[in-house]
């Protein structure tokens, strides 16, 4: 199933199903996430058994603030779907259920989202930073984390981030 057909099929189960540029996006509530993913995986005509990617984006002015995007793929049917769920700014850090049990590949990918956005995946077997050093303070891909603006060790020089260089 491609684009429109897939969106029509999914709308029966997920009322908030959008299609944009040929891609289907399903938005669910965080507490429905695990069930939604199981449904997408187990229905024979959907069989989204391959988890390509999990990532997030940060929208500080919005509620919910953190939007997780799960990119699922069915290798048999060669179709894809994106499952999105929004996490509120409060409590910080936000919590969501881990999907490592269903998709072992999510192990490192969820660690990366935790590292970059501070989203805590409940039930993850080993939730530690993966890219940033262990002692890093903050979550660098949040919008309120500065790009650079750190002091260098060269004669105390300071290099502002590119949006503050007045170029």
């Amino acid at each position, binding site marked *: 199933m491609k684009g429109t057909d897939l969106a029509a099929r999914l709308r029966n189960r997920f009322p908030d199903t959008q299609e944009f540029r*040929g891609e289907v996006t399903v938005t669910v509530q965080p507490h429905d996430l695990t069930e939604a993913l199981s449904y997408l995986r187990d229905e024979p005509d959907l069989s989204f058994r391959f988890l390509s990617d999990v990532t997030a*984006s940060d929208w500080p002015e919005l509620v919910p603030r953190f939007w997780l995007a799960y990119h699922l793929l069915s290798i048999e049917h060669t179709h894809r779907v994106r499952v999105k769920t929004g996490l509120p700014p409060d409590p910080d850090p936000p919590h969501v259920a881990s999907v490592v049990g269903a998709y072992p590949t999510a192990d490192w990918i969820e660690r990366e989202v935790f590292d970059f956005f501070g989203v805590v995946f409940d039930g993850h077997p080993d939730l530690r930073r993966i890219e940033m050093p262990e002692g890093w303070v903050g979550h660098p891909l949040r919008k309120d984390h500065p790009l650079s603006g750190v002091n260098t060790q060269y004669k105390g020089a300071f290099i502002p981030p590119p949006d503050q260089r007045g170029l």
Partner: protein
Amino acid sequence: MASTAQETMIINMGPQHPSTHGVLRLVLELDGEYVVSCRPVIGYLHTGIEKNTEYRTWQQGVTFVTRADYLSPFFNELGYCLAVERLLGIEAPPRAQIIRVMVCELNRIASHLLWLATTGLELGAISIMLYGWREREEILRIFEMVTGLRMNHAYIRVGGLSMDLPDGAIDKVWDFLELMPGRIAEYEELLTDNPIWRQRTVGIGVMSTEDLLALGVTGPVLRASGLARDLRKDEPYAGYETYRFTVPTRTESDCFARYQVRLEEMHQSLGIVAQCLERLEEPGPVMIEDPKLRWPAHLEVGPDGIGNSMGYVKHIMEDSMEALINHFKIVTQGFKVPAGEVYQPVESPRGELGYYVVSNGTNRPYRVHIRGPSFVNLQAVPAMIRGGLVADVIASVASLDPVMGDADR
């Protein structure tokens, strides 16, 4: 130290170890020569590419993503540009798409050659290292001639290419296509029936298709387990559906099968490049026409490298005030991209390279996420080497062909 036979030893392999393909650290728990468990540690090459793109214009993003997987830069550029083009609702002109496919396939050969060279080196086949490097150099010379740079080209741009092929490039690629099949035959002669090479690779690092899929592994490693999964066939982009090629597979799913798949893929890529060259006889634009989107500057490769075309500089400085205004507007502010999000996967030499690009309607990306195949594939290392010999760790890790720039971004 060990007082009883049950005690194990923890050893760090890397991050500074020539056979870990860059800065990969493996914390190995060993029982004598056998691996009890392994914990890969990454992040040593994290450079914040995703964060950086949020502070630059859409077109500038190309120069960042090309540095992620530095051994296959064209695939990064292509994935990113296709994603942005889909958000914009535009398509690059046909000639640009053909050249994109051509440089990508040459890049795939270069990447596999580098894999062959370094893997040979790591497993003790020193001569293949020199051969692999030699032919890769031929490809890098073509890239230098076409784009001005040997790597990090930023040649594929949103809307097309930075410039058309220079005179003589097509002949040079034809020469390479004539040279290469004989050279691949040489590699096979050196390695395929070489008893030491076979002992180091046959039956090593075996994983079932189910396990590979569960761990998200894609690319030649998955195809060596018997699944003919290739995004160029399954979800074609950039016109791949119009090229004739096959997807090589093996069923043994060991390091030797991965070697065979990669060699066969080089042959297939040569075939695709030949088809590209035939199609390139027709001239045509390599950038979209829309002045509100197209990169205005005309570049040329001169004797001292890439630079602005003198004809274009004269045009904006002397002939047309509008052209000058347009140039500055597009170069400094860029263009706006409609709000939305897309996920664009491309088949890189290492597997599914995905670009998740989010726009909020401004002249900068709101979020760019790179699904690096090296990052995901590296998760398979502990499962692949558990219970095996320490020496086989090298073969297994090498067979995944990880590039740390791609894993850490």
